[in-house]
């Protein structure tokens, strides 16, 4: 036993005496503080509310609202909102509200799936790179540089044209190109964390390698990852919309918001506003909600920014 670990030399703590400088409040975990901080941010709560609304709207909505989006109905094309069609119909006679719900499913599914793929790849890659250091780290980071220099939308478009777009293929494709930023972030975190005093202290106190990673490195790097997930979701939803708008989006019977919008543009001059603005509002609201949540999460996880 080295003399450094000789804890027996300290006098026993006197628990009956009040600490100097007044009472100490109950110790709370960092995560609970972060959640409380997050919940006190009105914009963040609004973001969560909007996102929850769209999850319910897209996935639970169709259970209660049965609009037609599968068979064209030429007797009811381009109807304005009214009885039976709360958001009107499009040029095929599809129900506007039902299309919005269907498109919302695709947007949220691709958004979350691609974000999870990107984060898992990115966190592993970044952690390996940061822990390995040296030449391995240098090579792995140059690979990231290479991928970051590729105009990613072009590649996604080319692959989507060749192989067709589905929820799964788009998620894989977007995820496969979005792990670069999380990889850099996690690597940066691991690099700074592993030389920090609290890690050294934990090591001196006898913590095992597993405990170091699980209790000290990961929870501290996780904040960055969580913040990044929300921005990834927002970006992926915008990518899907762009693909749909250019006409290379999901195939019928799947619908995506960008495709609905580009359909509506044909009738812009005819004043069929219900085919454009509701979809546009949906895209903006969901993306904005993700950005609001991301900003608030970053503020609440960053101890220095916390308003005490």
């Amino acid at each position: 036993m080295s003399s450094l670990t000789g804890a027996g030399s300290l006098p026993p703590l006197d628990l009956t005496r009040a600490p100097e400088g007044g009472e100490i409040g109950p110790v709370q975990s960092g995560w609970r503080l972060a959640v409380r901080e997050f919940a006190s941010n009105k914009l963040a709560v609004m973001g969560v509310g909007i996102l929850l609304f769209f999850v319910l709207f897209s996935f639970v909505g169709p259970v209660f609202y049965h609009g037609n989006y599968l068979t064209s109905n030429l007797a009811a094309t381009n109807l304005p909102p009214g009885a039976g069609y709360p958001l009107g119909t499009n040029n095929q006679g599809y129900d506007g509200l039902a299309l919005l719900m269907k498109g919302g499913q695709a947007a949220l599914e691709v958004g979350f799936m691609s974000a999870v793929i990107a984060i898992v790849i990115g966190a592993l890659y970044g952690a390996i790179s940061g822990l390995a250091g040296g030449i391995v780290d240098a090579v792995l980071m140059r690979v990231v540089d290479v991928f970051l220099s590729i105009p990613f939308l072009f590649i996604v478009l080319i692959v989507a044209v060749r192989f067709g777009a589905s929820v799964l293929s788009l998620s894989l494709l977007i995820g496969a190109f979005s792990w670069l930023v999380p990889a850099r972030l996690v690597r940066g975190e691991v690099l700074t964390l592993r030389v920090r005093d609290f890690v050294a202290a934990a090591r001196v106190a006898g913590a095992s390698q597993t405990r170091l990673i699980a209790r000290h490195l990961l929870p501290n790097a996780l904040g960055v990852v969580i913040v990044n997930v929300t921005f990834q979701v927002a970006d992926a939803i915008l990518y899907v919309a762009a693909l749909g708008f250019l006409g290379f989006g999901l195939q019928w019977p799947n619908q995506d918001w960008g495709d609905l919008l580009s359909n509506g543009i044909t009738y812009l001059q005819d004043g069929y506003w219900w085919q454009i603005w509701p979809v546009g509002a949906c895209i903006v609201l969901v993306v904005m909600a993700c950005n609001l949540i991301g900003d608030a999460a970053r503020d609440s996880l960053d101890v220095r920014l916390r308003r005490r």
Partner: protein
Amino acid sequence: MIGYIVRRIGTSIAVLFGVSIFIFALLHAIYPSPAIDVLGPRADTALIAAWNKDNGFDDPWILQYLRYMGHLFQGNLGYSYKLNQSVASLFGEVWARSAWLSGASLVLSVLIAIPLGIYQAVRRNTIGDYAATTVAFSLYAMPVFLLGLILIEVFALDLHVFSFEGSQASSLPSIIVDLHAMTLPIVTLTLLSVAAYSRYMRSSAMDVLAQDYIKVSRAKGLPERLVLIRHLVRNASLPMVTLIGLSIPALLAGNLITETLFNFKGLGLLFYTALQNVDYNVLLAYTLIGALLTIVGNLVADVALTVADPRIRLA
């Protein structure tokens, strides 16, 4: 500093080779040979094999890559079998149009975002700051085409001030003076960049405002106007250089969508048409050029920052 620049250029060349190999291999895997386009859909397999052999499309892909890159350095970007024209001449016809659209909006957005961000940082948490943040946040969440659509609806269809289409003129000078047609595309791209840049500029200016040298210059009695111009603007604008370098892929994507929406015949619309026709040589060449622009942009940004900021030079 010369050593740093040389090293930085070396890294860029290495990255450029990595990127070109990846893009070439990917597109080659997707589309091995244009034989069908040239010989027609009813060509038999023997004919296709013979054509592939004559034109080197049955060589190992790495050999084809080297040959392609060799041609590239001689300015030969390949041949568009769909448009029966060399890709270089296709790009030569339209690149200036895209450069004008993207360049004008980039310059405008920097000219707007820097003063706006500084105004927001100096007057933070006032009504003006909140209003600008709200607008920037909404624009930031907006797809390019939606913003363009809103502008078309309001300014072209309702007010009849501007055209809903980009300029169809063929010479660059007449496009530049055609503000009736070019205002909306340029404003679309500008507003989107301003949304991103001004948020960044605001936080950068807030960081600088908290620095000691700002306090010192105020304490020694320098008028606030001079504090802002001499100390704040120059220091707070430095990160913008890096940001612009990093945002080139986003600018190219925005350019593609804006040109498609406004039917403005530039590189973006050419790429879009090539996607519809599956014209792979155009797709390959433009993707490679996009990657090249990104790498050069990052390089220029890094070098410019080193020149502008002595603290980096010393580090």
